[in-house]
């Protein structure tokens, strides 16, 4: 495997690991956010209350019982002598139904609605708003009270302060003030006011101190001694109980004029109590009730002791609804302020946290997407680069092989005359042997043994010539690098045989100093032979003017891992500056020659994971050595082609 491929694998692994880590990071962050948000939003998405079809169960009895829940401060057993009596009498005039009132506190009402125990509900507008959302109530009619011959479909709240108190002129001035609350429906009054103030940004928190006033008459003195800055009450309540002169000491904040109101002094007006039906009541019954109760006032009877409640067409609760848009439930009466505040805080905190989480998630997703994109892009470019590199490497290998081939051809060309002589020897011998035989036979000299012997020698020479040709062909053979397990000494012998004539003609004395039993090396025999021939040729040529030129070829095991092959000549050696450039392409000291021989040789040896280097001998001449790595394979695998 090449270095690049290793790198590629490593990088890919890292990328994949990164991606994997990213995935788990993402997954865990998602899970975390999901669990957090569900923690906060679970109450919002709570399952709707389980549905029980009370209606049908009740249908079995002779007269169907219809339960009407009525919000009341104190539980009441009977409607006798209450303002509701007239209305229920009307309702019970229906033949098929039996209407039963249940007076419930707000909490009880909430529970009853939760269990679908109530068919109809009568409660104040503010609580209705909450229940409407929560339990799917639908308001049918609005309660009407008669005051002095006029009907009133709105409730009024009045906020009074001392007339000499100039601090409070508007409702908004109530901020940071102590406020007393009168009335059995004080919680409702307060709730509304709080919503109102909140809506106007007056309060983000409960910074209005309130406390209930039990005794109506006490209120004035409490105002006067400064315990309270203002008092909230139901409209007309104070007027009803306080003396006229005491009333003059008080001033109404933000006086409103309800056009139907019997009292001119209200700070705020809210719609009267609605009658609403539960989600499971069918419209037929609802419409029967509506028509019955709408006609109630026409049947004005004097038989009732107390002022009675009447019913009018449903008021518009939209404005009120808007005020309560953030409110989901109205909790326990006594804790109304705190709980609503806590709710608000909880709501906002959770909202902000969710917003932050969503923002973080979004940013994270974005950044991780960017990161992913970058990773993908860089991975792609990396892969592309690796492909190109591989391609380039393959090409380089091909080119190296081609170059080596060309160099071999060139070497072959330079050696042509030597090779011709090499081939000439056996051919001459063959020719001569054969002619000798012919002559003997012609002359009648039939010493057959001698002739047969001569012919045997002839055949040997033919083999010799064939060997030369074979070597020549394999040497100039083109092709892929073909590595086999090879004995280095065998390569040396082959090459010296090849160059014999060359050495002989230059009168070079060749000495072989070969270490025996060397381990095999994995090598392309032809290419290593090429390198050796190149080195030998250089050595021969460098000694053209030397007396008694000698070449020593030595092989030895340089260490545990390498075999070293050296060609040592007795020439002039190499000068220092040339020694540095000797393996550069196109560097040559000869008049003829491309300067590619050593460059190609070097690249061949490097392709074998070896090294080719040159140095000067201490005494005389130069030494070119190449190292080849020892292969661990057993020589049994040697493929000598």
């Amino acid at each position, binding site marked *: 495997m090449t270095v690049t491929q290793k790198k590629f694998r490593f990088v890919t692994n890292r990328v994949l690991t990164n991606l994997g880590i990213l995935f788990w990071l993402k997954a865990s962050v998602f899970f975390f956010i999901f669990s957090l948000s569900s923690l906060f939003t679970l109450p919002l998405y709570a399952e709707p209350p389980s549905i029980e079809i009370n209606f049908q169960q009740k249908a079995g009895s002779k007269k169907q019982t219809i339960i009407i829940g009525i919000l009341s401060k104190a539980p009441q057993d009977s409607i006798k002598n209450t303002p509701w009596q007239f209305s229920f009498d009307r309702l019970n005039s229906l033949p098929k139904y039996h209407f039963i009132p249940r007076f419930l506190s707000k909490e009880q009402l909430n529970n009853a609605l939760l269990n679908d125990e109530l068919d109809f509900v009568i409660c104040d507008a503010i609580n209705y708003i909450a229940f409407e959302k929560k339990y799917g109530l639908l308001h049918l009619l609005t309660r009407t009270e008669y005051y002095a011959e006029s009907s009133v479909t709105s409730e009024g709240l009045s906020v009074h302060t001392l007339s000499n108190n100039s601090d409070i002129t508007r409702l908004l001035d109530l901020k940071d003030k102590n406020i007393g609350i009168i009335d059995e429906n004080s919680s409702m009054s307060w709730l509304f006011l709080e919503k109102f103030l909140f809506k106007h940004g007056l309060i983000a928190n409960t910074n209005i101190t309130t406390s209930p006033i039990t005794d109506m008459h006490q209120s004035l003195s409490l105002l006067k001694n400064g315990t309270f800055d203002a008092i909230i009450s139901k409209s007309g309540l104070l007027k009803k109980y306080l003396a006229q002169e005491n009333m003059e000491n008080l001033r109404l904040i933000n006086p409103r004029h309800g056009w139907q109101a019997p009292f001119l002094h209200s700070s705020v007006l809210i719609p009267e109590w609605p009658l609403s039906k539960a989600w499971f009541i069918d419209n037929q019954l609802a419409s029967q009730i509506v028509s019955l109760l709408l006609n109630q006032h026409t049947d004005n009877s004097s038989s009732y002791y107390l002022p009675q409640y009447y019913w009018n067409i449903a008021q518009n609760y939209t404005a009120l609804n808007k005020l309560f848009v953030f409110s989901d439930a109205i909790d326990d009466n006594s804790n109304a302020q705190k709980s609503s505040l806590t709710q608000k805080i909880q709501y906002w905190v959770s909202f902000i946290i969710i917003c932050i989480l969503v923002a973080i998630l979004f940013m994270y997703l974005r950044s991780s997407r960017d990161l992913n994109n970058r990773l993908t892009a860089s991975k792609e470019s990396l892969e592309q680069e690796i492909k190109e590199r591989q391609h380039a490497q393959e090409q380089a290998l091909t080119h190296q092989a081609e170059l080596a081939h060309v160099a071999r051809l060139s070497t072959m060309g330079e050696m042509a005359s030597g090779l011709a002589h090499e081939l*000439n020897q*056996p051919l001459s011998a063959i020719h001569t042997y054969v002619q000798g035989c012919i002559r*003997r036979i012609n002359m009648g000299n039939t010493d057959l043994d001698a002739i047969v012997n001569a012919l045997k020698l002839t055949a040997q020479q033919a083999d010799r010539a064939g060997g030369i040709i074979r070597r020549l062909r394999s040497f100039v053979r083109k092709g892929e690098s073909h590595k086999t397990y090879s004995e280095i000494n065998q390569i040396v012998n082959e090459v010296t045989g090849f160059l014999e004539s060359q050495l002989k003609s230059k*009168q070079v004395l060749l000495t072989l100093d070969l270490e025996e039993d060397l381990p095999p090396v994995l090598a392309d025999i032809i290419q290593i032979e090429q390198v050796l021939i190149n080195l030998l040729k250089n050595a021969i040529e460098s000694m053209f003017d030397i007396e008694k030129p000698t070449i020593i070829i030595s092989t030895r095991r340089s260490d545990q891992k390498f075999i070293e092959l050296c060609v040592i000549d007795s020439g002039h050696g190499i000068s220092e500056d040339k020694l540095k450039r000797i393996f550069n392409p196109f560097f040559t000291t000869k008049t003829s020659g491309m300067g590619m021989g050593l460059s190609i040789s070097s690249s061949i040896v490097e392709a074998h994971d070896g090294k080719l280097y040159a140095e000067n001998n201490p005494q005389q001449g130069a030494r070119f050595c190449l190292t080849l790595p020892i292969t661990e394979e057993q020589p049994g695998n040697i493929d000598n082609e």
Partner: protein
Amino acid sequence: MSNDAIVFIVDDDEAVRQSTAWLIESIGLKVTTFCCADEFLENYNNEPGCIVMDVRMPGMSGLEAQEEMKNRGMSLPLIFITGHGDVPMAVRALKRGAFDFIEKPFNDQLLLDAVQRGLKDNNEAMESLVQNESITKRISSLTPREHEVMMRVTEGKPNKVIAHELNVSIKTVEVHRARMMEKMEAGSVAQLVKTTIQASRNNIIP
């Protein structure tokens, strides 16, 4: 042709050496082979014959051996055979007295002819050498007066002129002449002239 003549084959390539020997032996000549020039020079013992030698050999080359033989006064005909000869090499070899220059692979007849001619040449050279020695010996046996008489006889001068030139009597000239003819082993003046021409050609006499 002497039967003692030997063809010396000097070539470093054993196959070429042995095959050449095989060929030359086929015409009934004696052959001795050497692997290199040094070996030949060491073992040569003035036998008559001729040399067939490769030009390119490790150690002493063919041309170097030729030089060495000239220095030693060896006159064996030298036939060069070479696998990669060129014109300058051939010219150089022939100028220095090589008998022939043959390229490998050689035509067998060409080589054999060259060898035959070489042997014949050597034989003649040997014979003339023997004659010269004899002539030298004969001439050196002459007295100065007999030498003077011989020179004048070969110039075709009659005894009377010779006597006059040497300022001796005719009788004296006749005696010197008779001894000279005897020493020179010449039966007639013509034979004497022939011998003296040969001697002067070989620088035995001026």
